[in-house]
């Protein structure tokens, strides 16, 4: 169980150096992060993108990249495929999505999974740190499947369970979110939740437990209680990760800190990973600064 991203960074220092395939590397914040990750000893980059721009930025930030492979490529589709292939061929351990548009990377990952005969659902997960929670929590699917059916949802859970087991959980607990809110148990998300529970129990191949209830009130309060005051909220009960019904909720929830960083979500940290393709992939946001990207890389080294 990971308590914080601080812990992720500490663990990465002991995980051994990993080769990182960087998709469209020509961004100052990305190269600054890679410079630091290299000096900390957990990553050695393979830089794919506009070589001229990459070398210029590297010079400017005094990052000696002479010993690293630089692959000059400007077509985003080819950048993504090349980067993913490096991992599937064993020449790199993980992919870092840098400046490239996410859709190119997703397509390359899906293509690679297909080529290698992996019949897995691809999904995205967010890992979220709230300073008052006892652990990092996950959220999925945050960016790939628009409106997954219950069978796809099971595969999305499978991916996230694998991730959490990799990060040290023995049997992750899943919270399946639904807008049923005690008014409509026939909402598709609620009916899916029942089917998922049955299927996972019957199948036995996914090593997880499923939390009772369908919303945060259910997960964090005593059974059937209403919230009297914030003091009674028991954050130790929070599931390890949440499954959302659709991509709208996944995307809004994972970036919820944007609503108010000053008043509400101070200390919030978020990192994203791509799951199911057999290619350990961390998804840095293009708006991220280098210190956030260092943690992305650290996280990648732990899952590769």
């Amino acid at each position, binding site marked *: 169980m990971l308590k914080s991203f601080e812990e992720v960074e500490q663990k990465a220092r002991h995980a051994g150096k990993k080769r990182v395939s960087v998709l469209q590397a020509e961004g100052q914040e990305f190269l600054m992060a890679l410079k630091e990750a290299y000096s900390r000893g957990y990553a050695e980059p393979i830089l794919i993108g506009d070589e001229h721009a990459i070398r210029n930025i590297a010079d400017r930030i005094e990052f000696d990249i002479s010993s690293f492979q630089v692959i000059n490529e400007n077509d985003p589709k080819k950048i993504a495929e090349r980067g993913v292939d490096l991992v599937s061929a064993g020449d790199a351990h993980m992919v870092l999505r840098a400046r490239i548009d996410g859709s190119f990377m997703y397509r390359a990952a899906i293509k690679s999974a297909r080529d290698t005969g992996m019949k897995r659902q691809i999904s995205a997960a967010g890992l979220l740190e709230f300073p008052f929670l006892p652990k990092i929590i996950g959220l999925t699917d945050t960016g790939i499947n628009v409106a997954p059916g219950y069978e796809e949802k099971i595969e999305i859970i499978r991916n996230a369970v694998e991730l959490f087991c990799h990060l040290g959980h023995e049997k992750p607990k899943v919270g399946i979110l639904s807008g049923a809110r005690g008014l409509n148990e026939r909402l598709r998300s609620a009916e899916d939740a029942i089917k998922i529970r049955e299927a996972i129990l019957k199948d036995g191949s996914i090593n997880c437990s499923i939390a009772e209830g369908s919303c*945060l009130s259910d997960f964090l309060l005593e059974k059937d209680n209403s919230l009297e005051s*914030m003091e009674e909220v028991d954050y130790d009960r929070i599931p390890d990760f949440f499954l959302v019904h659709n991509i709208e909720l996944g995307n809004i929830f994972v970036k919820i800190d944007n609503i108010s960083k000053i008043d509400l979500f101070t200390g919030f940290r978020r990192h994203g990973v791509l799951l199911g393709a057999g290619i350990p992939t961390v998804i840095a946001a293009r708006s991220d600064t280098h210190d956030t990207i260092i943690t992305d890389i650290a996280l990648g080294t732990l899952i590769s």
Partner: protein
Amino acid sequence: MRKFNDILENAKQCEKKNLVVPQPRSKRVFTAINEAKKAGFITPVLVDTEDISRENLSSLGIDHTGYEFVEIENPSSALAEAMQILHRNEADMIFQGDLNGKYFLDTIAENDGGIVQMNALSYVSLFELPTENKMILLTDTFIQEFPDLKQKIRILTNALSLTDILGIEKPNVAALTMLERVNIAVPSTTDAAVLAKMSERGQFNATVDGPLDIDCASSPEKAQRKGIKSPVSGKVDIYLLPDIESGYCIAEVMTYLGRAPSAGILLGSDIPIILNLKFEPTESLVLNIALALLRTP
């Protein structure tokens, strides 16, 4: 009004109203009613077998003065009696109290003798941002499940009736979804685009923009990085959520993970109706009564 305290202060200026409550039982509900009564917002009209109401009040150490009691024979007729009281104009507002939410909503929206039409209703959750000195509104966080465009217009119009009461002039509205460009495979993006166009043509007394993801809605810099410019970016008053999955869950996330002070109001009915939602702390129920009071004539 920019703070929850402003809502309470403004409610104190309103004429006191009769709030009918069918069958109140829990400490939470009695506490909320009693706080609202002490603030001078309401005269509680409790509908129950008389013994039970009085006993409950006494056991919580609440003085009976200023309460009205309507005695019924059979506890299960409490809501029907409460609705009769409203029809007879002997009360101005109704509180769900401890009744089951589904039973309460189904009954008040019955064709025969009901007091609302379900498809006109929507719920707004309000959150206070003290440093930014503002309140933000999220809707629909409880009622409509998968609203079509027509219902979204109604949800928006309802929310605008509230910003009007709160004195927020020409509010900024973000029609939120997961991306900032129209994708015809995702209806929430096309609905958002239509609302934005309607706004541009002056069809709302608000500035509505969409589709927006939460990055673009919250920050002009992030919007610019994604190549768009939005008139509401960084100054959103109302977040219009695409469906109940995100509406309900995001309201809970704001409460439990943002730990934001919250309030809520049901809109779209003639008679103010106060709900009792699980994720709203007891303190919020008093605010909800104050908000309901502000929308009485």
